[in-house]
């Protein structure tokens, strides 16, 4: 076991965990941040997406050791007191149905908007290409991201 320091959603946490434990499990089980979901567990579906030191990553593929002293943003960190414009757009456009993919979609869209100030439809499609949704058919998700333009 190792003592690790994580800076999650602007708060510092110290956890004792196995260095090979998945960041996904540390977030959900140690920090009780259950917004981040597990889908495939092998980097294919994007449900576990978080932003680590400014970069989109699959938290199921990050060992806890490599998250030590890193800044991590999860879906819980996207909203402050009220929902972010991106989250509101998902509601307005029907971008969420069963909800399992939604936290990952929001995080991937947020990361894409940080990289590209005025994303094209192609940028959005590429930015979300690592996230699978089995409900919406994707159109509403892409519309949601388009609707709030450069804001997230």
């Amino acid at each position: 076991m190792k003592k690790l320091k994580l800076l999650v959603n602007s708060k510092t946490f110290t956890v004792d965990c196995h260095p090979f434990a998945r960041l996904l499990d540390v977030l959900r089980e140690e920090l009780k941040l259950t917004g981040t979901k597990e889908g495939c567990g092998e980097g294919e579906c994007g449900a576990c997406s978080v932003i680590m030191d400014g970069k989109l990553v699959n938290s199921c593929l990050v060992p806890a050791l490599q998250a030590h002293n890193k800044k991590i943003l999860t879906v819980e960190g996207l909203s402050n007191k009220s929902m972010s414009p991106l989250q509101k757009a998902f509601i307005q456009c029907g971008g969420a149905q069963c909800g399992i993919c939604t936290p990952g979609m929001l995080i991937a869209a947020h990361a894409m908007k940080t990289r590209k100030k005025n994303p094209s439809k192609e940028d959005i499609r590429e930015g979300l290409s690592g996230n699978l949704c089995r409900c919406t058919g994707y159109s509403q998700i892409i519309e949601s991201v388009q609707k709030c333009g450069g804001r997230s």
Partner: protein
Amino acid sequence: MRGYLPDYDLSSTENLTEAFGKLAEGEKPFAGGTDIMVLMDAGVLPAGRYFDISKLKELGGIKVLKDQVSLGALATYSDVRNHKTIQKHFPILVESAKEVGAIAIQNRGTVGGNIANASPAADFPPCLLVYEAKINLISSSGLRTLDYTQFHLGYKKSEIRPDELIQSVLLEPRFLDYHHFWRKVGSRQAQAISKTMVAAIAKVNRRKIEDIKIAFGSVAPTAVRCRKVESFLLGKKLTSEVILEAKNILTKDIQPIDDIRSTGKYRLIASQNVLEEFLCGIG
């Protein structure tokens, strides 16, 4: 079932000397984790001690040197696709990096990992073969440089010794007046491993081929340079007869098989067709 955590260890590593010590004790390097964590999830990662190499400065970064460009083993696919010099001189490396997994994988997967895994379906090796890259391997006894063509020995087998780490890949920017072509054939655009893929570059003068280099992935135990097709095409004008014959000769350069992703038959025909697509685009 997932691997049992107490069977594993992962330690941080601050410098190369420490890394060589860990290699000598049988520990295995861990970089971006995009392969190792998947094996762990599937319960097939060999138990043992691993060490994190992601902080080793000697293995990182993309450096533009006087006559060559050095891709550090820890450079990620995102680093490759966003680098101006790579975009200008080695565009198919950028194209291939864009098609690995999706953004989250590209942010974590590394050049060294892509090579070290020695999978025939890895996306960079065909590009490195046509750009005639060199590879630097580093150990406590120093650095050795190999032509990339010598590196892959067979299915998941490579030249790397247990005491070595991949340090970097070296590329010479001498292909500005070439056509560059990359095509990956997979089940979908993102998050798919290829059924076949081709990297090719050619210098053409008045429809005549002055120089040509072609490599395929996923259709042999390693990525392969297609020497028979290349020597047939050299000096020729690209008529439809020549292109047809090149497609026939390709069957001698590649040995596609049936596996979980495709069949040998499909792979052969698709490979011949992407070769034709390349040749039709440069004549």
